[in-house]
């Protein structure tokens, strides 16, 4: 039974009504995230942190799901899984669309150094603390069995959140550091997706991944040749993009692979192809980010469940420890004097905050294999994200 399918059914009501309730909430949150009041709310630093981290939508999901009011229970609502896969695909598309040649060429050497160091330190550190927690909780489990989870959590720990308003970090004096943090957050999301899918490959899994990537490549060629240089019809573009994405996500789900890499490849191809239709798609996808994030985090909150034992809390504590101790040191070493420039003090807690892509990686793993281990890892990453988001705010309040 998959995670979303097992997560939700309204007590005493037909499954279709339960799915409708979740779908209605998702649509409402998506709509609200694109409205003027939401934009106005994001000017308030705390609200910016809550919206940027997806915490409001996640809290709504938790409230609806088994961890909250219990209104939604762990029973079958298979209708929701495609929505979860589409959200993941859209997130992969968003991250892939950053991989434009001109953007990658603009990545400065200090940022490359920072990202490389961060990726290695975070991956190893997170994998070690997760291994320690799992060994403590279940000493009999073989490391080979644990490896995909260790690798997923290691990849999820790469990078940081790019939201800086809550830190009052959009200071013109430190604009170069702010750009490095935001640019690094985007680049790290891409590295996390690639790392997660390559390192967690199981024997025989490469065929699924290659099949998914091949379908994504073929879909891109078809999309480009169908639309040509059309620029005028927004509805047609939206429909074509949704159809292509559904094809890529569906192929990945059938092949037993993650939805993220295929969609990532599709996004990368669209952003590097010429044509007015491609640019309009880029804008459409970029503008949809808050809405997709709202739906995705709502679903993440719904599938979040209780896990026997304290090991997810131990993993979360360990991950938080790695972030608090290692991330600032890595940033200081990689950026050197830039880290000390006037106005950059407020930005120092930024690398500590977990990137939202971490939850996406955990949900992708959960949709592929719904076991207690995957649920526990999702809970651990949500707890770590929450802790790493709150601590900088407390630090700023005290200072």
């Amino acid at each position: 039974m998959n995670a979303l399918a097992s997560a939700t059914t309204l007590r005493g009501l037909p499954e279709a009504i339960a799915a409708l309730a979740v779908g209605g909430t998702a649509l409402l949150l998506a709509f609200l995230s694109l409205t003027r009041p939401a934009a106005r709310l994001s000017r308030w630093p705390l609200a910016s942190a809550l919206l940027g981290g997806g915490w409001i939508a996640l809290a709504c999901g938790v409230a609806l799901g088994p961890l909250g009011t219990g209104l939604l229970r762990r029973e079958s609502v298979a209708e929701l899984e495609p929505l979860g896969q589409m959200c993941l695909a859209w997130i992969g598309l968003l991250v892939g669309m950053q991989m434009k040649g001109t953007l990658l060429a603009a990545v400065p050497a200090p940022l490359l150094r920072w990202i490389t160091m961060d990726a290695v330190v975070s991956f190893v550190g997170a994998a070690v603390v997760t291994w320690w927690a799992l060994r403590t909780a279940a000493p009999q489990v073989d490391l080979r069995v644990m490896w995909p989870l260790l690798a997923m959590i290691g990849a999820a720990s790469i990078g940081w959140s790019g939201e800086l308003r809550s830190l009052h970090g959009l200071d013109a004096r430190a604009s170069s550091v702010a750009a490095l943090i935001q640019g690094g957050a985007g680049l790290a999301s891409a590295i996390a997706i690639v790392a997660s899918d390559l390192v967690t490959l199981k024997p025989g899994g490469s065929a699924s991944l290659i099949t998914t990537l091949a379908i994504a490549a073929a879909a891109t060629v078809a999309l480009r040749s169908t639309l040509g240089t059309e620029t005028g019809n927004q509805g047609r573009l939206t429909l074509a993009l949704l159809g292509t994405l559904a094809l890529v996500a569906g192929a990945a789900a059938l092949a037993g692979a993650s939805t993220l890499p295929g969609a990532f490849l599709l996004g990368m191809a669209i952003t590097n192809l010429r044509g007015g239709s491609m640019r309009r798609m880029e804008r459409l996808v970029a503008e949809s980010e808050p809405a997709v994030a709202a739906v995705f985090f709502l679903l993440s909150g719904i599938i979040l469940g209780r896990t026997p034992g304290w090991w997810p809390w131990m993993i979360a504590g360990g991950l938080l420890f790695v972030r608090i101790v290692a991330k600032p040191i890595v940033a200081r070493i990689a950026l050197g004097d830039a880290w000390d420039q006037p106005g950059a003090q407020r930005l120092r807690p930024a690398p500590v905050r977990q990137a939202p892509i971490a939850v996406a990686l955990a949900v992708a793993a959960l949709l592929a294999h719904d076991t207690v281990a995957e649920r526990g890892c999702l809970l651990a990453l949500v707890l770590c994200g929450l802790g790493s988001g709150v601590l900088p705010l407390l630090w700023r309040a005290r200072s």
Partner: protein
Amino acid sequence: MHEPGSNELQLLVLIARTEESFDPVVTALLDAGITGATVLESRGIGAIIRSEMPIFAGLAALLPQATGSRVILSIATTERIAALMRYLDQLPRERRPIGVTLPARQVLGLEP
């Protein structure tokens, strides 16, 4: 409402929100006989809000924040601006710029 005379000068402000909508604006300016204009790269408030709160994507922060949006400023006669506006009004909605004109009471440094 007071209609200015055809030879009175007006300040023309056009906002082309995308690359695709900028091209017909330039063509229309030339067709209307307005050969002098200043073009400024600009950003909409939506782009600013998105760049301040990236969720999954933030790499674009490394580049100068060009979104394809441009502001076109020009001073021209009412007659030419009217011809321009008639043409722009016929463009498809997606390619039509936002435009406004203001009476130019005093003008300095403009060649006759």
